[in-house]
């Protein structure tokens, strides 16, 4: 079942005194299936947050539609099954962490004993068990991000939507959040999160969508997105006389000497045969043939630059 669905979702803002149009999200089509971790990747200002805000019903789409659990967005009832963490969240800083979680628990209509139980569990999960009685105004940025994640999970949601969940966290905190997201997946939850931190997305996501200037450029499994783009093929051979290799015209500019080995970079798959024949001719020993794929980062930067 598709937990999140969007069809032609578009948001146009009117900016400034002259009401000039600015297209924040342009004809977005998207489907997120139950139980998957979906990473929504894009540079700053790509429209990630706007998309999430539309899904949560904070802003109305200019055109297009979207559904959560099959219900059109804006339905209050459907939020019973959703956990949401906004970007750089600000909270009621006069509340203590425990009061804060209890407040959100009550908004879900949870019973007091359930709230108490979940609050204790979540504070532990996000590493704030010793700060339960501290007012949020005394929290650091990282602690606020953690308590924000905790409030998103107070209702044990089926779908968790996180806007930049790793921002403001140190490496340890980021790892903890990654582990938490993986735990959610293990328990069958769907996680949809936006980020511009590529390694996080690479490590976590089943599928990614790359949003650039409001348009979805790529969507699919990471392996699918990157598979088709082999940058070059790397052939490593040993026992080749480097001087002899230098005399072969074809190899000009394609070789690097690494210790006793010779590294040959072939731009296209079709040329591999030719390179291998040369290796054989020079009486070299073939060690490896490895297609080098584009990393997500390179892909992302290329997509982002296309739009400029």
């Amino acid at each position, binding site marked *: 079942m598709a937990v999140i669905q969007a069809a032609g979702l578009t948001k146009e*803002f009117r900016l400034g005194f002259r009401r000039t149009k600015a297209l924040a999200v342009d004809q977005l089509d998207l489907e997120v299936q139950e139980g998957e971790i979906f990473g929504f990747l894009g540079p700053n200002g790509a429209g990630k947050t706007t998309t999430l805000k539309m899904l949560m019903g*904070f802003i109305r789409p200019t055109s297009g539609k979207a559904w959560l659990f099959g219900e059109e967005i804006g339905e209050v009832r*459907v*939020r019973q099954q959703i956990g949401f963490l*906004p970007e750089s*969240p*600000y909270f009621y800083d*006069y509340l203590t962490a425990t009061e804060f979680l209890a407040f959100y628990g009550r908004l*879900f*209509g949870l019973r007091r004993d359930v709230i108490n139980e979940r609050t204790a569990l979540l504070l532990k999960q996000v590493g704030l068990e010793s700060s339960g009685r501290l007012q949020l105004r005394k929290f650091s940025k990282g602690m606020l991000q953690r308590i924000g994640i905790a409030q998103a999970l107070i209702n044990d949601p089926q779908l968790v939507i996180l806007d930049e969940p790793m921002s403001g966290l140190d490496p340890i905190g980021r790892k903890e959040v990654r582990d938490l997201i993986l735990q959610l997946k293990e328990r069958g939850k769907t996680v949809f999160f936006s980020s511009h931190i590529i390694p996080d997305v690479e490590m976590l996501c089943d599928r990614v969508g790359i949003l650039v200037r409001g348009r979805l450029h790529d969507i699919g499994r990471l392996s699918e997105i990157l598979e088709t783009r082999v940058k070059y093929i790397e052939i490593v051979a040993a026992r080749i006389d480097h001087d002899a290799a230098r005399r072969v015209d074809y190899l000009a500019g394609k070789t690097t000497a690494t210790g006793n080995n010779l590294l040959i970079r072939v731009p296209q798959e079709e040329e591999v045969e030719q390179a291998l024949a040369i290796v054989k001719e020079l009486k070299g020993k073939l060690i490896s043939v490895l297609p080098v794929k584009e990393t997500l980062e390179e892909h992302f930067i290329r997509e982002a630059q296309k739009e400029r």
Partner: protein
Amino acid sequence: MMKLTAIAYNTFKEAVRDKILYNLLMFALLMIGGSILLATLTVGEQSKIIMDFGLASIDLFGVLIAIFLGIGLVSKEIEKRTVYTVLSKPIGRPQFLLGKYAGLLLTLLVNSVIMTAGLYLVLMLNQARWGHSIWSVEPRLIEAVYLIYLELMILTAVALMFSTFTTSTLAAIFSLSVYVIGHVSGDLMAMSEKFSGDALGYLLKGLYYTLPNLGQFDIKGQIVHGIPVTPAYFFLTSCYALVYIIFLFVVATMIFQRRDFK
């Protein structure tokens, strides 16, 4: 219902943990207490002076709290971006507004009770000072406070409505204007008759009919001078307040429902 009370209680808690509230409350109590000094300057009518001064203080500080906390009810949630987490929960926007409103009304109620208790205490001390029974203080002060509270309910709704679509500063200016104009409602009508037929006349008449007539909630004079106020008057002003609050709330909800939180 539980969700609504959660919002209301949280709003109450926010006000209670806010220093502004204590400053205003302390100042109000000092004013009420200070009226005893003022009263000593006069001959005979001490308790009337204290009552007049005390009720005026309850009114003034109530209005300040209603407006200055009221304007932040929604706009602060949007400016501080707390609205995103609250409205991502299964709670409708009208419910959210109603909860915020109820929370501030609770705050105002607690404040009014404390200030009224303070006023009674000062009056009793004054009675004791002159050798009168402390139980001989005017019981009808409650009637005046009741109408002041109704006025505060309207003003809070006004501030809430402005706060759904504009910034705190503008909402403060608008709400204070409504308060001031609301107290000179009668003059508006008189002025509109002078300009009858003119565009200005229509404008003044329009203002007279749309803005709340707050003068009718002021019975301080009657209470202090022992002039009776009929039950029918209380009933009618209560109905007026209720209708006006519902009207404001419907407008606020309509604006808030349509609003984008960018």
